[in-house]
């Protein structure tokens, strides 16, 4: 009984720590015709007193959701897959065009401006946090 309580309690606490991650100003980009790639941008804030580690995302509507970063390398814009995004306790990280983003690789259908897209953030400890973001067009 005691151990069950412990497990339940730890599950509750872990879950709570994941929920301590708040997402602001998040959106996904609408896809140009024929393109099954997109990026999501957002501000992530860790309100907890522990580091939160995100390893990527998951959704049945896309082959993979990975964290990528951009960097200038030899004068060229280069992308790299970031296996872990660490957000220190009390800190925020902004994912913005030209920098960090969640990359959606192999979308099963086009992302249409005005609609929304739901997916899970996946944490290093296996927990998840579901997220629904608006789809926006960058074309006027």
């Amino acid at each position, binding site marked *: 009984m005691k151990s069950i309580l412990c497990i339940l309690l730890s599950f509750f606490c872990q879950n709570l720590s994941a929920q301590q991650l708040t997402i602001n100003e998040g959106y996904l980009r609408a896809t140009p015709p024929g393109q099954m790639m997109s990026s999501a941008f957002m501000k992530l804030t860790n309100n907890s007193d522990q580091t939160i580690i995100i390893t990527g995302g998951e959704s049945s509507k896309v082959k993979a959701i990975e964290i990528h970063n951009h960097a200038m390398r030899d004068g060229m814009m280069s*992308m790299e897959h970031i296996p872990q995004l660490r957000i220190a306790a009390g800190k925020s990280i902004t994912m913005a065009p030209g920098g960090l983003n969640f990359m*959606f690789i192999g979308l099963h259908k086009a992302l249409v401006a005005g609609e929304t897209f739901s997916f899970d953030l996946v944490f290093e400890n296996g927990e998840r946090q579901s997220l629904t973001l608006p789809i926006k067009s960058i074309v006027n």
Partner: protein
Amino acid sequence: MKSSKIFTFFVLIIAMFLGVFSYLNFNKTPASIGDQLGGDFSVTLEDGQFKLEDYRDKVVLLYFGYASCPDVCPTALALTGNILKKLPQAIAAQIQPLFISVDPDRDDLKKLTLYGHYFHPNMLAGTDTKEKLAKLVPKYGAFYSINNQENSAMGYSVDHTSRLYIIDKNGKLADTLSHADIQPNLANKLLLLTEK
């Protein structure tokens, strides 16, 4: 004694090669704009060839990228398209935006046509053989390289310079805008190169 002379000779030869090699490598850095950059070219579009020499009465805006580029290319193309849409019609009619994909393996011509139109109704988009692209891209001081993303579902991405090349009505490269300069400076540059 003889062998040490041979050794010295070889060391000198190697040093010479290293010198030439590093000089050539040094020259790989992006060149500044000048008479040596730019010039006529052609690329394949869905409905034929784009030949720069046919656009002497237009200012051509050229961007090299790839359609599955998830962030940088669409940002640059959307900024460009959005700025063109805000220009007076008479000015915009003198401007021809062109996207050239450096990823012909993934970007077919039909897809590229739709891709270009998404950013601006007049934007043309094409590509060509890898051999032709390898000659054309450096002609404009641009460069790219395939980046194998072994730990990513992307397979590979293409590292590339993100610049907008402004070619005047004489077919000369008039200016280049870095990615960050497109938004603040493109409209003014275009007003200088077109007639009211």
